[in-house]
């Protein structure tokens, strides 16, 4: 089995198992009917809710609507490419057992998107994407874990999809440039032609 085949096999296996687990949870009787979660990708309802989450947590002022949508598309692609329990690098001079990464976060995150949707419907009779932004923020605050760590985790370890999205975005080169106001382009294979010039301000 090739490297790529193995990754897809592991991902699919993990998704099926977690999908079965999710199917055993009965939704509340007064909840609006929800579509069956897709095993491979976020279905349209989940994507609609995720888009609304993105508009709340991502820096919309800096990215603009198109930028937010692009980041969300990239995030979904990243999630699709996730290999559950992947072998992680062993650190220099650490003799510990080999570490493996987290399981596929998609099932948990999908259920969290459903929970946002359910709360919006129950409290406000409307979908999460349709309620006002302050209400979306309130619902999100209520559903995020009580612990409020300062550091962003690795996205795959995020305990909530909103934190996963933030963690994903803020590791990108684009975010690093925005945070420093300059075209740093981290992790770009920049070659040897660039000298010691100060990185140019964004938009220059």
């Amino acid at each position, binding site marked *: 089995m090739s490297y790529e085949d193995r990754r897809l096999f592991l991902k699919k296996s993990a998704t099926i198992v977690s999908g079965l687990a999710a199917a055993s949870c009965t939704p509340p009787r007064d909840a609006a009917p929800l579509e069956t979660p897709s095993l491979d990708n976020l279905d349209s309802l989940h994507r609609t809710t995720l888009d609304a989450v993105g508009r709340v947590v991502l820096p919309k002022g800096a990215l603009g609507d198109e930028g937010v949508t692009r980041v969300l598309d990239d995030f979904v692609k990243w999630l699709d490419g996730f290999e559950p329990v*992947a072998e992680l*690098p062993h650190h220099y001079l650490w003799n510990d057992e080999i570490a493996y990464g987290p399981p596929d976060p998609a099932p948990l995150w999908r259920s969290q998107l459903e929970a946002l949707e359910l709360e919006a419907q129950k409290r406000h009779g409307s979908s999460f994407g349709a309620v006002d932004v302050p209400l979306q923020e309130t619902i999100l605050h209520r559903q995020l874990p009580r612990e*409020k760590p300062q550091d962003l985790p690795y996205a795959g370890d995020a305990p909530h999809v909103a934190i996963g999205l933030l963690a994903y975005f803020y590791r990108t080169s684009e975010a*690093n440039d925005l945070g*420093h*106001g300059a075209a*740093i382009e981290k992790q770009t294979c920049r070659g*040897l032609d660039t000298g010691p010039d100060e990185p140019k301000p964004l938009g220059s």
Partner: protein
Amino acid sequence: MAKTIESDVVIIGAGISAAMVAEKLTEETAAKIVIVEAGDKIFNLEERFDRRARFLAYRENPWRGDHIRGQTGTGIQSRSMAVGGLALHWGGTTPRYSPEDFQVRSIYGVGYDWPFTYDELDPFYQEAEERLGVAGSPGPAALDPRSKDYPLPPLPVSYNLVKLQEWGEKSGIPFWRNPVAKNSVPYQGRNVCTRCDTCSICPTGAKYTPDFTFQRLLKEGRIELYDRTLVRQLELAEGSDAIDHAVALDRDAPDEPIHFRANTFVLASGYCWSTHLLLLSRSDRFPNGVANRSGMVGKFVTGHRSLNTYVEVPMKLYPGVYRSDSLLSKKFQRERPDRYVRHDLRIWESDVSRRPRLTDDEGKRLFGDAVLDDWKKRTATGVARMRAYYDVIPAKESALTLDSNRKNPWGDPLPRIDFADSEWSAELRQHTEDSIRGVFDHIVRAGGGKTLSTRVDSLQDHPGGGCRMGADPATSVVDPEGRSHNHENLWVVGAPTIVSSGCNNGTLTFAALSLRSATALAKTLPARTTD
């Protein structure tokens, strides 16, 4: 019935020391050379861009399978076990030790002298730099002596390092670029560095890794390489102290032992596994293990500790331009203070305390543009990381031993490594760490800024020893060339043979020592005739 493989030279291990020895012996001798490596071949240059991308996106190990399940000890060692060794992942940092490292006893009255001087190792340092392709520009001659230029010009300097050098040198301490084994021009058929800033997985092959040497030697038919083959024992010839053969296990057919028979055996498995194999190789004549008549095998394992500090500097920096690059000073390795203290000094760009965060200082959760606004405010000034490695002189009891309570999947006891400072280092530790804190403070006072945090890292970095070299068979395992005092046809090369770890990254020194051993070994083998 064991399968037997015959050769003139068997090299056990396939890391950077083995690569140096194999390359040199194939150039200078007609010897048939066999290399035996317990780990896998990972010849994956064409996959490295993809693996780098997944490493960045998902943290996945870009060198999957570079270890053996259950083959790990207790103490400071790496899990890396593959053709290329730990140098598959290395950062490519290649400073030399300083001349004083070789003569601390003579100069300062502490520790142990090496059996040769820096000047004697200088040509082998140069040779190692040429084989690896080291790019650099030397520091002031008084602080950074070398007889010839670096083989490759330095990589371009980043804005961040220019500013940090100006900042650091306000203290009066000179800094220069840390040399690296990364191609600044195309070299030895390998690509030029494109400064991808993920040196643990160099996607272009511009950073030297030993797999390139082995692939070339295999292609040219100059070596035979047996990977996934774990050597478990060195057996003596009947009625003699010479090594007759190495007993190995094919990990794919563990019930069918292989005997590697040769005239000469070179142990090049790093400080942990070289020492471990000698201790495992017990016999009636050598009940404490091969090469261990003196009882010195496993003793004097050595490394250096470090102090790290993060400093808010009064300037804007741009973390992510090329964080792998750093500045170096050897000023405090060359001085002769009243009380012994020696350390290097390095400076890097850093993003510590300058990363985006989920909550503000009041613990309020941040969303949307507030995350970015908070981050922008905090990146108005930059952060520098400084680190000093200081030498730790090992006690004899700083040792690698066999742990009978922990065995690998094939029943062999695993290594246990317990570092111990000598009385000199134990007594000097507080003074040393206070002195380094004083240097950090001096730099911050002169350049401006604020210290954010300082910590001592107790990890003994760049470890070596366990098969210490020396002229006296009573206090060492191998002679100054790396030849066993007890077995004429057994050599140990690289990290295990060092006397002390100095104050700098060790890989270049391990490579230079291996070349020095290979030069002596080549004289015992039939010379290569002109093709």
